[in-house]
């Protein structure tokens, strides 16, 4: 499949601070790439270079085969971009703002009206088209930004924290919109909400201090962890020591975390090796001693754990 976004060896310095160092990646049509990383990791800077707002010190950005540095106008016309915080002209109404965008994008007459209507419908703006943008709620402002980005039905969509600060319903709508559009575009979404990656992205990269430290599907990323399943148990305090002892006999357990709980209970969290049958063994143990265990929960390892493991272990070096 065609690589719609291709960046190679991208680097940017601000003064002495190396914001992005040698990032290379490509996004194919139909892919939604999640950009993860702690604040200040270089996500936004990378996006600004992909969209042509910042010129890279080194490296190249190619959008649908068009190099951004040497042919910026052509490359920019293929991108829809939602900058962080969805800035817009606050004294305009969404309608006049979207008309301005469609003028700049080169649409005229009936086509212009159709594009504005389509974008505002998709972004769910129809009820507020004639209100000034400055009077709109944060959720609606974000939708104005999204409508602006998708107006020309671009091949490449770059969304910088599209759901940041929205309520759960609004987040859900925006994720649905992204999924809906995904099939014929290459999309990059930056976020630090990891459930979002699992919900909308086909692939994710984790960026830390200007470098890509992990790249793959959510499942691939989980392989960065030494464990892939966790079992959480709440046990009665007096029996906890004996119970722990029996848990330690299973060799599929990598680590056992323990936290005190109120009401005389202890929470045990066992991290299990990939491919072990230990979860079932623990379940059997629980079945044998039903009075000891108050709660039993088996979970797959989450991206949160990967994220924390990768970005904090690096920092301590």
């Amino acid at each position, binding site marked *: 499949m065609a690589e719609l976004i291709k960046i190679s060896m991208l680097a940017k310095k601000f003064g002495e601070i190396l914001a992005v160092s040698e990032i290379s990646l490509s996004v194919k049509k139909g892919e939604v790439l999640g950009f993860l990383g702690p604040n200040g990791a270089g996500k936004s800077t990378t996006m600004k270079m992909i969209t042509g707002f910042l010129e890279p010190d080194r490296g190249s950005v190619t959008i649908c085969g068009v190099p951004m540095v040497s042919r910026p106008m052509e490359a920019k016309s293929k991108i829809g971009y939602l900058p962080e915080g969805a800035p817009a*002209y606050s004294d*305009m109404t969404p309608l006049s703002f979207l008309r301005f965008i469609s003028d700049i994008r080169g649409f005229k007459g009936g086509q212009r009206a159709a594009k504005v209507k389509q974008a505002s419908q998709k972004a769910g703006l129809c009820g507020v088209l004639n209100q000034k943008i400055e009077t709109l709620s944060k959720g609606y402002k974000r939708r104005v930004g999204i409508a602006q980005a998708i107006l020309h039905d671009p091949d490449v969509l770059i969304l910088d924290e599209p759901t940041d600060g929205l309520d759960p319903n609004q987040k859900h709508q925006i994720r649905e919109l992204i999924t809906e559009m995904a099939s014929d575009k290459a999309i990059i979404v930056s976020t630090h909400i990891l459930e979002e990656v699992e919900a909308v992205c086909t692939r994710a990269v984790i960026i830390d201090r200007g470098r890509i430290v992990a790249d793959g599907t959510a499942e691939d990323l989980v392989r960065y962890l030494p464990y892939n399943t966790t079992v959480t148990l709440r046990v009665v305090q007096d029996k906890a020591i004996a119970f722990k002892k029996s848990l330690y006999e299973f060799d599929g357990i990598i680590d056992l975390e323990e936290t005190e709980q109120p009401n005389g209970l202890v929470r045990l969290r066992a991290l299990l090796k990939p491919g072990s049958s230990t979860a079932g063994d623990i379940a059997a143990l629980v079945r044998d001693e039903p009075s000891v265990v108050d709660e039993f929960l088996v979970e797959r390892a989450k991206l949160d754990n990967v994220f924390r493991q990768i970005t904090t272990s690096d920092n301590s070096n």
Partner: protein
Amino acid sequence: MRKIQIIFWREFSAYFETTLAYTFVAIFAALTNAFTFYVGNFFTRGQADLQVFFQYHPWIYLILVPAIAMRLWAEERKSGSIEMLMTLPITSSHAILGKFLAAWAFITVALTITFPIWLTVNYLGDPDNGVILASYFGSVLMAGAFLAIGSFVSALTKNQVIAFITTSGICFLFIMSSHPLVLEFVRVWAPDFIVSSIESVSFLRHFRQITQGLITLPTLIFYVSLITFFLFANKLVIDQKKAE
């Protein structure tokens, strides 16, 4: 060209979206009239011309043009909309020219609204309308020069107050550069050619020539090159600093 036009119309209509346009036009009219009639003694002079009307324009522009210019780029940078604007398929030159021309057109509109005074002077006497037309033209040119300086300064900062004060300060120097206060200060240490070149960039001197009905080539070149220079500097600043 079409992109400049689109940006021009967005910017131009933005003045009328808020009360800014009406406030500006009202204050402009009030100030020009106050200066003409009270400070300039329009009636008691007994002359059918608009000398006193135009004479105070540099000083009115000193306050009002920086007020228009300060928001051109500082506001875009502060709100972050510059990131949206500059990732659209346009160049920085499109954006700079569109914005500059819109602001210039807006000031020209405010200036044309002073036409009753021109009717008045024609009613009262028999003025040289050629001179008046030339003076209006000179006034627009001078406003353009103030505006280009203001647009450049506005691109340097996110803070509109700083943009306003700095622009006013620079424009004040340009107005005053033929004044003895400035020239005497320079003459002490600088060779003659520097003194005369400082004197020659005076807005006041060039403007006074025009209000006397003399549109000379050097004056035209002066204003056009000043505007070009500052807009070019504006482009350099936007290209380099837009993301900061």
